[in-house]
């Protein structure tokens, strides 16, 4: 069965935050589900407090699996960021993750980008420097 090598399955998840081109980038790698959403949620909270208004990119290019708990954390991040006048962008690179956004009708409601490079163009209102 030609499906690529077997790796033994381990819970894999990582979330780290960087500053890039005026954006706070929260990059998520691995599986985004009930087990891992708390980590993403706290990274988003931290990113939102980082700068006012917050310009946040949620980079899901490295996400191998997402379910409705993962979608929920994205919706929650958007609410949180917009509540304080910021902007949130979401990078969705794989078809598998894109499909879950689409089937939930969120693909047209959220600003999805195919790559981090595309998401890093200046925010709609211009990148603030904290002023």
């Amino acid at each position: 069965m030609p499906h690529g090598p077997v790796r033994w399955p381990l819970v894999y998840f990582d979330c780290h935050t960087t500053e890039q081109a005026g954006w706070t980038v929260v990059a998520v790698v691995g599986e985004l589900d009930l087990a891992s959403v708390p980590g993403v949620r706290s990274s988003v909270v931290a990113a939102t407090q980082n700068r006012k208004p917050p310009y946040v990119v949620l980079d899901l290019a490295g996400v191998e699996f997402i379910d409705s708990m993962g979608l929920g954390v994205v919706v929650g991040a958007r609410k949180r960021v917009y509540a304080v006048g910021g902007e949130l962008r979401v990078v969705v690179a794989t078809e598998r993750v894109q499909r879950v956004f689409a089937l939930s009708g969120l693909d047209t409601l959220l600003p999805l980008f195919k790559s981090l490079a595309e998401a890093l163009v200046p925010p709609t209102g211009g990148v603030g420097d904290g002023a």
Partner: protein
Amino acid sequence: MGREVLLEIPARPEYLSLARQVVAAAAALEPSFRAERIDDLRVAVSEATTNAIESHLDRGSDERIVIRCNLADDRIEVEVFDRGAGFDPATASTAPSADSEDRLEHERGLGIPLMRVLTDEAEIVSDPDGTAVRLVVYTPRSPQ
């Protein structure tokens, strides 16, 4: 001999991934399933198992979640059983329909609708002693 796999896991979030893996691996034994369809099933199983785990956590229950995975030539059927407090599927709080702007206000309630669109059949039977969710995905060649 049937191709039925039974899995019992602790009602803890960190076992979700294991449940998905087992179902995906069991489904992969039927060569006629396309990989994308198995991915769909993985998500649907994740939704059902997430709800089951949460129902036990809500109740403080120590019992395990039971997942039964039955592979037939024309379909795969996955059942997820919990012993949580149950709910009324007809009135469960689900997010507003996909084309409503309002949907962006809802961080929860996305699971059951997703489960339904990802499978060919999704049936929920619930009472105050627990819930059973039955998910079915047909192989490409069989009638849907």
